[in-house]
C-alpha cells in the first residue's frame, strides 16, 4: 500500500493513472445519475407532509454532503502536502476547491429554493444555513489565496494552512441542528439501521450520493491531470506527452 502511494507521488505515474481512471468514474456517474433521477423524480411517491417539493433533496442532500466531504479531502491532502511535501497531494487539494465550492453553492441555492414553499422564505440566518455559507466563503478564500502566489509550492502551503484551520467548521455544520434550535430539519441518518425515510425515497437518495461522489472523482482526475502538466512543464515526459497528444 505504502509503495503504491509512493509510486503515485511521481508526477508521471500520477498523470498516467488519472488518465486511465477517468472513464471508470465518468460512466458510473452517468449511469447512477440516470437511475437515481428516474427513481427519485418518477418512481418515488410524494412526501405526505412536503408533497412533491421533497424531490429537491435528491440534489440538495448529495451536494451538501459532498461540500463537506470535498473540504475534508482538501484539508487532508493539503496537510499531506505540508507534512510529507508530496506535490501530487497539493495538486489534489488545489483542484478540489472549485468543485467543492460548486457543491456548496448547489446546496445553498437548492436549499433556498426548497425553503421558499416550505418555510415561506428563501433564507433565514439559521445555524445550519449560516455555517454552510461560511463553508462557501472558506472555499472562496482558499481559491483566492492559492491564486495569490506565483510559486505553486508557496501557494499550496499558505492555502493548506487555511484549509486545515477551516476544518473546525465541518463539525459545526454537522451538529448545528443538534446544538442550536434551528429551522433546518435534523439528520435523516441518526440510526443507519432505522432511517426515518421510506426505502422508496431512501434508495434514490443513496444512489445520487454515490453519483455525486463519482462526479467529484471524474472532475478531480481531469483537473489534476492538467495541473500536473503545468507544474511539470519543464520535464521531458510532459514535452513528449503534449507533443504526441492531439487536441
Amino acid at each position: 500500500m505504502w509503495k503504491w502511494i509512493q509510486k503515485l507521488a511521481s508526477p508521471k505515474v500520477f498523470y498516467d493513472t488519472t488518465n486511465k481512471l477517468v472513464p471508470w468514474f465518468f460512466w458510473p456517474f452517468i449511469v447512477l445519475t440516470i437511475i437515481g433521477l428516474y427513481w427519485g423524480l418518477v418512481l418515488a411517491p410524494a412526501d405526505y407532509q412536503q408533497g412533491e417539493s421533497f424531490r429537491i433533496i435528491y440534489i440538495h442532500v448529495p451536494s451538501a454532503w459532498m461540500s463537506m466531504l470535498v473540504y475534508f479531502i482538501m484539508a487532508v491532502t493539503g496537510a499531506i502536502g505540508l507534512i510529507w511535501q508530496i506535490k501530487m497531494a497539493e495538486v489534489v487539494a488545489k483542484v478540489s476547491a472549485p468543485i467543492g465550492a460548486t457543491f456548496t453553492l448547489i446546496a445553498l441555492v437548492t436549499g433556498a429554493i426548497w425553503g421558499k414553499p416550505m418555510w415561506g422564505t428563501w433564507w433565514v440566518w439559521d445555524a445550519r444555513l449560516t455555517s454552510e455559507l461560511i463553508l462557501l466563503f472558506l472555499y472562496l478564500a482558499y481559491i483566492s489565496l492559492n491564486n495569490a502566489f506565483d510559486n505553486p509550492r508557496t501557494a499550496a502551503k499558505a492555502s493548506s494552512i487555511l484549509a486545515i484551520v477551516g476544518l473546525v467548521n465541518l463539525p459545526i455544520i454537522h451538529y448545528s441542528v443538534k446544538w442550536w434550535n434551528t429551522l433546518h430539519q435534523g439528520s435523516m441518518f441518526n440510526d443507519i439501521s432505522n432511517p426515518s425515510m421510506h426505502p422508496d425515497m431512501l434508495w434514490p437518495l443513496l444512489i445520487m450520493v454515490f453519483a455525486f461522489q463519482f462526479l467529484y472523482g471524474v472532475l478531480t482526475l481531469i483537473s489534476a491531470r492538467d495541473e500536473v502538466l503545468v507544474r511539470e512543464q519543464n520535464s521531458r515526459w510532459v514535452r513528449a506527452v503534449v507533443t504526441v497528444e492531439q487536441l
Partner: protein
Amino acid sequence: MTLAETLSFLPYGQYALYIWLSYGITFILIIGLFVRASINYKKIRTQLKNKYAREND
C-alpha cells in the same frame, strides 16, 4: 397569479417552479464544471505546445 401558479401545468404542479429551477441550476453548474475542465484541457496543451515550439526554434 404567481409564477409558481402559472407554471403549475408542468409535472409536480404547484411545486414545479421550485423543483425544475433547482434541477436546472444544478445541471447548469455541473455542465459548467465540465466546460471549464474542457477549456483548461485545450488551453494548457496549446500553451505548452507553443512554448515547446518557441524553444525548438
